[in-house]
């Protein structure tokens, strides 16, 4: 499946924000888990990503924390979240 422009933008945001030194956008499979397996992100990264989403797209995550974190499952779900909730 082709990567959308937004997905590419998010890949670069993840790499920049989390300072993933050897990850290139091509290394992020949109369907692969972002956390633990797959890209190997962790709880600190989740907080960091939440901040970046707010700064960049004005997205305030819902308080139902667990469900909003489900959007972080992989890049596609993250892109869907940004698509539907972005303020900027």
């Amino acid at each position: 499946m082709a990567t959308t422009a937004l997905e590419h933008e998010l890949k670069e945001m993840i790499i920049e924000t989390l300072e993933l030194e050897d990850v290139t956008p091509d290394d992020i499979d949109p369907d692969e888990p972002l956390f633990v397996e797959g890209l190997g992100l962790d709880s600190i990264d989740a907080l960091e990503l939440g901040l970046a989403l707010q700064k960049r797209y004005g997205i305030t995550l819902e308080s139902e924390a667990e469900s909003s974190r489900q959007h972080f499952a992989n890049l596609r779900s993250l892109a869907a979240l940004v698509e539907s909730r972005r303020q900027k």
Partner: protein
Amino acid sequence: MTFRELSARPWRHRPLSEPFAWLPPEGNTPARWFSVGEWHGRIGAWQQQLLDTPNDSDSWRLYEPDPIEFGAALIAIWERGDRVVLPADNQPETLSGLRDAGVVLGSSGQTPEQMPSTRLPSRPPRWSSEPLPAVAVSLYTSGSSGDPQRIDKRFDQLDAELATQASLWPLRGQLVVSQVSHQHIYGLLFSILRPLCEASPFSAQPCRYPETLHTWLRCCKTEGRRIVLVSAPPALSRLPEALDWQPERAVLETIYSSGAPLSKGASDQVFERLGKPVHEIYGSSETGGIAWRVQQRGSAWTALPGVEVRHDEESRLWLRSSHLETPNQWQRQADLIAPTDDGFELLGRADRIVKIGGKRLSLTAMDRALATLPGVERATTWTLQRRDLRLAAVIQLSPDAMPHDHRQRRETVKRLRRALAARFETPALPRYWRFVDHWPTNTQGKLSAEIRQRLFQDLEDRRAPRWLGERPHESGWRIILEVPEHCIYVDGHFDGQPVLPGIALVHWAMQQARRLFAIDADFSGLERLRFPQPLLPGDRFEMTLEHRQDDAGASLRLECDSQRGKHVSGRIALTARQELKR
């Protein structure tokens, strides 16, 4: 002040109708109270569970994330006269490493030995005349040797701490909301035992995210309830400014932080956003609470009442405290301190224990775990001052395990991280890796601060290569380098198929030459310099440099080779650098 120490079994004495825990709102379900009576039912359920579970020892390993169930299990075990063992996490190796420590209880999630996930129905508790156990809880922390060390806490030690806190900062029935794990001493004391002893309610769910906190604050404002927040640096240093805290923040009474020092910047930010200063508690599993501070009043730490502090000529902290196992003895600690007029400053540790995301990690244990992995000949790790002190690793690999390009490097990192994952939590896994074929040292044979800095210089300077060691070669030097994936020379040059332009190699060669040959020269021309094929991001290569001075003038001979072949070959003509005008 309502305070009843643990030894007086406060759980037996509260009116059954009193609120015990606060069930936060969920979806359309409004918040509600869980009464002391309901909680007693859970103690009864756990008592039955313990009766039904064969256990040869008098201790129980408890890993239970639900605070109500955790509290009930704790009391059920104590009422039997048994000891509670708290694993720091539920990593399979942590749990199985504590084999001598009794049956595993609770929803440990990852172990086959776990209890059935369905909970037994509530039933009335039975209060026995069994004396409380000599050891209330045992905790495990990584010692400086890297082996888990058991720390036993007696009731008198816990009671001394709880009494101190109750007198300094009485809870007065406020709702305790926790962002930390009660499997560790700080969370255990502040979010479970303090509410228990001071008859204050706590939240029935941990509050992991700032958005959750925001909603709960709003909800408590409506209910007219005040909140005490038990937090830690990872959560406090990431409070989104996009959330409007202003209307709700008046609900917050006190904010605590422990586990690691909070940066001054983060502390100020919390004060600005939440309107209350952070009370930081300094201590450890072994020592219990030692001191506290509010950074808006100063950076020095003030010893808690009942704790005496001094230091020796090595700046090591000495402690005499009722929270220690031997309350009347001075004990030397691994922390280094410097006294100030109004307390003391922390200078770091004398051993190799670090905190990542607030969790303690023994670098010795990490190094040892890495060294046992296939292909790894030698390994060392340390924390980088980037993003919460993420771990940097230098790994000497055997030649056949050495990655030579981007894909191999990613696979190697993945393989090593996966092998460590059973033993360490994800945030503790090394984030920045340098693979070397020879141990990089200075002339004294040390992996010095300067060498460490050079190994990770590309993180600071996007124009720098990844330096992985060097050795004399013939009459010059051979340097091992990698092309960093996010190197500025690569960035955006050729979308789709990024390569490293040849001129970048010339820049790198000049930089290395200035350092290695102590020359102060500029290149004045490229002589017969060929670039047979470009280097790609992630490529590992050897740069061979030779400095020549002959009749034709000064020059630098340059070769770059990787496993794929030759990337540059030729000479660079040099001229002495112009004197820089001031």
